[in-house]
């Protein structure tokens, strides 16, 4: 019964992703991408990654859609209507091949929720056991992000800061 929810969500993901590529109007494409992010957030939440789902819903479905729409409003209507040429022969051959290779490689991945997978036996048990005694933080994701891996998060913040500066420098020049 639970399995069927997963199937429905994956079908919706595929439909919205294909729609975002195939639709002829960029405005509809942006809105379809927003709904794609929303369904992806549902998938993350269903898999137990609530923090990731939160970020996906807020950034993917909210902020990115607003930024795309503001960009589209600065363009002329003729720029947002697309004529899509048919894909070339190389695309039709290479991309299914890559997909088959990825599926072949995926058969070697550890099972879902496998307690003996390499990711679950390295440092994760230590973090899960020590997080509350070490830093009085119940949410282990937060304590890993902001305490154990704080330097990584600081550099991520530098990246966000730099992207804001770059946007300002590139777009505000022709005032």
């Amino acid at each position: 019964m639970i399995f069927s929810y997963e199937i429905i969500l994956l079908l919706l993901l595929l439909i919205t992703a294909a729609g975002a590529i195939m639709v002829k109007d960029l405005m509809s494409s942006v809105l379809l991408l927003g709904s794609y992010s929303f369904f992806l957030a549902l998938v993350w939440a269903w898999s137990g990654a609530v923090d990731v789902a939160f970020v996906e819903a807020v950034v993917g479905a909210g902020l990115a859609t607003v930024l795309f729409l503001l960009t589209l409003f600065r363009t002329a209507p003729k720029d947002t209507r697309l004529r899509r040429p048919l894909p070339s022969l190389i695309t039709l051959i290479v991309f299914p091949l890559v997909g088959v290779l990825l599926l072949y490689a995926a058969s070697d991945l550890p099972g879902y929720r496998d307690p003996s997978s390499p990711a679950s036996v390295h440092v994760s048990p230590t973090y899960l056991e020590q997080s509350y005694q070490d830093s009085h933080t119940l949410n282990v994701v937060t304590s890993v992000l902001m305490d154990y891996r704080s330097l990584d998060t600081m550099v991520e913040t530098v990246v966000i800061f730099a992207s804001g500066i770059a946007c300002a420098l590139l777009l505000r020049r022709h005032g």
Partner: protein
Amino acid sequence: MIRPHDSIIIQTLGRFIIPVVQIFGLYVLFFGQYGPGGGFVGGVILGTGMILSVLIFGHDASRSQYARNILHADGVGMLIYAGVGGLCMIGGGEFLNYADLEIPGLETASRRSLGIVLTQIGVALDVAVTAVSIVFSLSAEEIMENSIDG
């Protein structure tokens, strides 16, 4: 530039929704230690609330004053984050090891908890300012020049 929206429904709804969004953003920011959320998501929600006020009431409205003013805080979030790391070094430890924050009367775990809160505020400020700044870059060059010079 973005002019105020002339629909009375959108204006009234915006007046009601924007404070709720901001308070929810603060809740997500400070509740990140106990549930899903944290600095990044809280910052994006705070920034989105300000973007919403710019989109509804326009650049010049007094309700968008806050969004215009926060652009001057560009870099303050980074300063808070790296400053906490520097304070840890002053306390005699490693960079960003919050256990070395020099605060009397706090045990080690509480110091690390406090360090997490402070750095999360830094991340949230940085992300919110960046989101508002990108929206202003995309929509209003000439207004930006005036408000920064004046």
